[in-house]
């Protein structure tokens, strides 16, 4: 029999069978969502114009840009675990997250002054470190503030707001450059303004150590704070199985860019439509984030997590199938958006629940780092496969491996037999 982790979680909070308390959006989660929205407007507006700014205005050479971009991609995973662990250890998840957001905002100030290769690379590195620091403590705050029965939905609300910001950022940059063609610094200043407001929302409206006694759920969080995380909190057999499953699936999650390229080669639309693919995926993601979270709460988070990967598998097939055209394109984008909606917040919820409260940030950080690293490896590997056997064959190959990996992951994430559980739950 197949039991979900939400059932396992249920043992700890003991809701009467069949009765689930009504969903009430915690103001903490709303504040964190708005902070993420503003921060994503800030970071995505800069990310959209940075290649243009570097190559067109600063005139850095090819190699320099490659190096900057490499920094941009790689850094955040490495600091994430350390920040998650330290947030748990000091018990100050809010201020760890705050430090991360504030660091990225400070990087925007430095961006205004950066003019050479070295300073620009440093600014981008600082921004990425900030992102690495804030993600896991923030998700831990969501996990601790949410009603456990509605954890998936709570993450869904946050991810929806986050994605709205990611969609608005490039539009903001685009509009500014349309009005002021050389207005890169206006984009940077606007980005800084949004970053500062985001930091202010977090600082003012997310309760920290002293105010947390105010509501009932926070008491639980406070007791969590006193206990320090243990290594075994994030190294339990269950957690190891989750990390293994998420890592295996992550290895078969090729970058969106590759899927878009397959779609582009099949339907031969003009490059200027290319960004619409990204926009389409984001719209599907933000529309489905909450419904998928609710489904996860009701039906089981593991099931939705796995179903999301089935969606990804279908997206691969839709992109690679011979019947190209608009329906296949739309289907691919919707499935890709559904995949993110069903897996991103849900993974944070799964990892956050497998770790005890005192190690919530560490557990989430571990899962997110595993997935990020696996996806980086996957994209490099897929790139090689792409050129070795061609785009469609590569797509089918990955789809085939994913079809095998999903049952494997399901097996790993199965509710363990009672005797195993007894030996692992201390």
């Amino acid at each position, binding site marked *: 029999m197949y039991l979900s982790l939400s059932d396992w979680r249920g043992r700890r909070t003991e809701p009467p069978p069949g009765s689930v308390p009504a969903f009430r959006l915690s103001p903490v989660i709303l504040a964190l969502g708005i902070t993420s929205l503003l921060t994503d407007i800030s970071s995505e507006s800069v990310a959209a114009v940075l290649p243009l700014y570097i*190559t067109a205005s600063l005139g850095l050479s090819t*190699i320099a840009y490659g190096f900057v971009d490499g920094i941009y991609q790689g850094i955040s995973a490495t600091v994430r675990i350390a920040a998650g662990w330290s947030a748990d250890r000091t018990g100050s998840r809010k201020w760890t997250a705050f430090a991360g957001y504030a660091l990225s905002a400070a990087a925007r100030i430095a961006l205004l002054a950066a*003019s050479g290769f070295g300073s620009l690379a440093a600014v981008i590195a600082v921004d990425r470190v900030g992102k690495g620091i804030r993600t896991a403590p923030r998700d831990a705050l969501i996990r601790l503030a949410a009603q456990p029965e509605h954890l998936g939905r709570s993450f869904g609300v946050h991810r929806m707001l986050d994605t709205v910001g990611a969609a608005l950022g490039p539009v903001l940059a685009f509009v500014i450059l349309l009005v002021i063609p*050389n207005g890169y610094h206006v984009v940077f200043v*606007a980005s800084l303004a949004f970053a500062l407001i985001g930091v*202010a929302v977090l600082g*003012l409206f997310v309760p920290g150590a002293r105010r947390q006694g105010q509501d009932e759920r926070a008491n639980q969080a406070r007791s969590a704070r006193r206990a320090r995380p243990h290594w075994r909190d994030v190294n339990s057999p269950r957690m190891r199985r989750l990390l293994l499953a998420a890592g295996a699936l992550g290895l078969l999650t090729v970058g969106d860019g590759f899927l878009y390229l397959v779609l582009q080669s099949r339907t031969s639309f003009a490059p200027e439509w290319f960004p619409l693919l990204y926009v389409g995926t984001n719209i599907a993601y933000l529309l489905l984030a909450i419904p998928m979270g609710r489904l996860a709460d009701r039906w089981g988070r593991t099931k939705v997590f796995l179903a999301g990967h089935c969606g990804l598998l279908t997206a691969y097939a839709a992109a690679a199938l011979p019947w190209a055209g608009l329906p296949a394109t739309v289907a691919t984008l919707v499935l890709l958006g559904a995949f993110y909606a069903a897996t991103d917040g849900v993974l944070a919820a799964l990892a956050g629940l497998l770790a005890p409260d005192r190690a919530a940030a560490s557990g989430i950080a571990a899962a997110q780092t595993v997935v990020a690293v696996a996806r980086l490896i996957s994209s490099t590997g897929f790139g090689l496969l792409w050129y070795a056997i061609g785009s469609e064959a590569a797509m089918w190959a990955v789809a085939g491996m994913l079809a095998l990996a999903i049952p494997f992951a399901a097996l790993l994430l199965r509710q363990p037999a009672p005797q195993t559980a007894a030996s692992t739950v201390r």
Partner: protein
Amino acid sequence: MTHRTRLVVLIAIIVLALGAAGGYGVWAYAQYQAESRAPSQVPVAASAPAGPVIFFRNTASGQGQGQVASVPAAAPQSPRTLTPQACDRVYAAAGERICLRTKLGLENTTDEQILDADWHPLRTRTLTGLPSRARLSADGQFAASTVFVSGHAYTGGFSTSTEISATGGESFGNLEDYTLEVPGATLTPQERNVWGVTFAKDGDTFYATVGSADRNWLVRGSIGKRMLTAIHAGVECPSLSPDGTRIAFKIKSPDPNLPQVRLLAVLELRTDQVTRLGEGRSVDDQAEWLDDSTLLYGMARGAPVGDSDIWSIPADGSGNPSLFIQHASSPSVLRP
């Protein structure tokens, strides 16, 4: 702090932050308007010069900034003549012109335009990426464009994309898909970047850079055979001399502490002899031959951002650089 106080503080921060950003935006807009309406900071001639000319992108502030301009090859310091065409990279040969121009949008794309001698567009294509290098063959029959492609989140980031086409319209494809032969090295296609094409005069041969991680090769290419053969290591952004005997290129600085620095050098094709030129600054351009003994290249001025000068230097390593055209980039010599 009460909830109300927090709200007041937040509203104050929002008003301050957005007010300051909006104010800066309005100031920048006014500044931009004033600058683009102001007369050019350099003297501008009314009519086009006769005889051989040098086309370039005019980077002087004021009217005509970003537009293609020309000066007589014999008197490069004389007032420039503006064309109505705006380009980030420009090149001219015979009766054809190529113009790469950034197209503003949510994704970074480039318009590649082929124009006639009067700057009337013959065809336009959209390339995914940002303008980097543009070249035409001496007879104006072939065009090559290189763009920077910045990747999506997980695709591993940056690459270049270079495509050769007939100015008449037919595309000969992305050079990454050509067969590549590098003696002593095996490169997977995914690892290779190709950029900086320069054409020979036979209607088939060209030279380009193939890069992989931190290694670069000069390759000789054949359009007909769709093939690239490495002939020299450590060469970036080649430019073939008009007499077809030498290649000007960029070489890495011998100082390992300056990995980003690129210095100018010339390769004698027959003897494989490399001569370093007397330019000590890092060059980020594909050099252009003024004649068989002199090279031209753009060099950023530093401030304001985006402004640049064109410099010249003897191609035999005998002399120092001298300022050739102020407030200009992307030089292209139109030979008679």
